């Protein structure tokens, strides 16, 4: 909800700025227009000038050349009303006929304030009387009863400011009301959009000016939900399919493995045939490991494998795995050496017993799979910086630098969305990686100091 006050602040800022600019603009406009008005010459001034320019010679009056030209060009007429007789004693040539030639005092007062027969009139003082200028009917508008309260004029600027302030306030109130309404309808929509990435179910009321947007948000949420559901369904289907296939393979594979194992130890058979049986048995075991791995990895990948973390002794788990291998290694082709300090007997980690057992089994099995002619396997466990490092080495064929680099850094084809035609490696290490990441640990592969392959598992100590 942080964005709403921010939005309001910005709107008010824009409003205040625009009001201020508007006032400034108005003042400038008034000033410019006013100036052009005064520049054209005030009619009162023209009247005074006319009075001055009117000179007496013998019995008649003469208006100066320039002023009579100016009056003519403006279609303005002029008369001189005598002080004593109140009769017109001089007038310009263009005096309309309707203009009276005699004036009473009240006529004079009237024409000073206003008009004669619709002609706006202005007066100028002359030594013999009053000069009256009559401008064309539509040239000026005169306020005939112009009187103001003194207080009003004295406080004019204050009043002006007050009125301006009042105006701004009224605009502001109108604006706020309009905006609050808008924001009120924007708010649920903003909330809806904010919640979209949280994968929550969203329903925005489809009401008000923005109902269309609300509707599309609801629709988007619906689509996201359906997609999510479909994806989960697909993943479950895939994991179930893998589980089903691996289940169905088990019984036929039992028979291949069982008979091959029997033939391998059959005393009546020749060595060569027993060797062949051994190959069948070994390869069936690889298939067995592969389907186990496939099943587990798909479950781990799709979060269908529960990880039951408890405080466990990793030494006891490694020992059990190693001993299981030794107990099953009929031909003793793969002797395993425990080269861990005898004093390290209990190393607690927070982990899933079954999964950790599986990870270590996979690494040892990996060494066995890749070294058909046998190899020595070495297990080390050391404590380092509140972590346990389990290192499993062999002195077998090992791997090239390139392969090791790839194993450490390239995603496995099972979890890689690119189409790859490169040679694929087994699932064993992928599972180890998945299990380690579920335990906040890590896996590194490399060259062994014994000449073969080396895998190091790092697990945080249980404190």
């Amino acid at each position: 909800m942080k964005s709403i006050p921010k939005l309001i602040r910005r709107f008010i800022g824009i409003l205040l700025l625009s009001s201020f600019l508007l006032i400034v603009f108005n003042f400038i406009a008034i000033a410019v227009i006013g100036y052009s008005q005064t520049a054209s010459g005030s009619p009162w001034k023209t009247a005074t000038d006319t009075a001055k320019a009117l000179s007496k010679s013998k019995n008649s009056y003469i208006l100066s050349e320039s002023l009579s030209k100016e009056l003519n060009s403006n279609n303005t007429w002029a008369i001189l009303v005598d002080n004593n007789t109140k009769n017109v004693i001089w007038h310009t040539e263009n005096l309309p006929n309707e203009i009276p030639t005699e004036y009473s005092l009240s006529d004079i007062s009237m024409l000073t304030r206003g008009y004669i027969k619709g002609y706006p009139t202005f007066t100028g003082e002359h030594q013999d009387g009053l000069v009256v200028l009559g401008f064309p009917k539509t040239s000026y508008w005169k306020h005939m009863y112009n009187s103001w309260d003194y207080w009003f004029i004295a406080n004019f600027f204050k009043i002006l400011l007050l009125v301006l302030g009042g105006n701004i306030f009224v605009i502001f109130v109108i604006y706020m009301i309009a905006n609050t309404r808008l924001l009120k309808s924007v708010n649920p929509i903003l909330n809806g959009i904010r919640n979209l990435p949280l994968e929550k179910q969203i329903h925005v009321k489809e009401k008000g000016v923005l109902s269309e947007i609300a509707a599309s948000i609801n629709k988007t949420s619906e689509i996201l939900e359906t997609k999510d559901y479909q994806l989960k369904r697909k993943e479950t289907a895939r994991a179930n399919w893998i589980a089903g296939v691996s289940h169905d393979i088990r019984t036929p594979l039992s028979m291949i493995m069982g008979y091959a194992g029997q033939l391998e130890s059959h005393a009546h058979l020749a060595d060569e045939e027993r060797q062949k049986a051994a190959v069948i048995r070994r390869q069936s075991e690889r298939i067995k490991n592969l389907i186990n791995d496939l099943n587990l990895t798909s479950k781990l990948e799709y979060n269908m494998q529960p990880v039951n973390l408890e405080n466990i002794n990793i030494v006891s788990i490694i020992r059990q795995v190693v001993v299981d291998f030794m107990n099953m290694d009929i031909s003793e082709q793969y002797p395993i050496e425990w080269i861990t300090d005898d004093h390290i007997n209990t190393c607690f980690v927070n982990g899933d017993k079954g999964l950790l057992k599986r990870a270590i089994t996979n690494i040892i099995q990996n060494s066995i799979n890749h070294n058909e002619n046998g190899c020595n396997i070495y297990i080390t466990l050391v404590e380092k910086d509140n972590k346990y490092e389990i290192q499993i080495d062999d002195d077998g064929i090992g791997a090239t630098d390139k392969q090791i680099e790839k194993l450490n850094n390239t995603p496995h084809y099972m979890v890689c969305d690119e189409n790859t035609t490169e040679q694929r490696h087994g699932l064993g290490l992928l599972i180890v990686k998945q299990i380690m990441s579920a335990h906040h640990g890590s896996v590194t592969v490399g060259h062994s100091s014994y000449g073969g392959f080396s895998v190091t598992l790092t697990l945080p100590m249980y404190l």
Partner: protein
Amino acid sequence: MDYNFLKKKRILLVDDEQELLNMVVSILKEDGYENIATAKSVKEALKVASETNPELAILDIMLPDSDGFSLMEQLKQTKDYPILFLTARGEDEDKFKGFGLGADDYIVKPFLPKELTLRIGAILRRSYKNENPLVKLHASEIDFDRAEVIKNGEHIALTAKEYDLLLALYLNTGKIVTIDALCEAAWGDNPFGYENSLMAHIRRIREKIEENPSKPTSLITIRGLGYKLNVEGK
């Protein structure tokens, strides 16, 4: 002393697949077992069981008319004897369910013949240990009934811990038993920090059973990992 009496135990084998039955029977026969009865359904299994009175049953979980779990319950109603599941269902929940109902072991297919025979041997030894009073070692014999060792005609008593350790080793004859498993056998569920005591006990056991305790032939050390008991006549 040998295991002949265990090889004579009556075994009931239940699986709906004839081929698999044939194979398991041949594996068991090769290992020396003589009395094996088979069945392909729960109904048949119950009938065969009432006729042959088995002493060990090996059951599949998925059977045409019902499942192995309910078969186990029905079999155990008449007599309590060891039951081992041999199944294609490898899920942890199934294993837990099997053990929870009182199964003695659980093998997931596919399996190696040796794995099957080793586990059957272990179950039989554990279940019928009292019928085997004397276990013959290289230089001595163990009498689990009396908790003593007989060496050169001399009867040497075993302490409780020594008895527990020897029994755990004997039940896994020929297999390595980890230090942790031995500590658990002797000291129970929270067997941490007993490694030195274990070594001391092993030394004392060797003095009782070995001809030359500093060069053991029956109770072998697997460095850093555990111990193994070799029994004569196996």
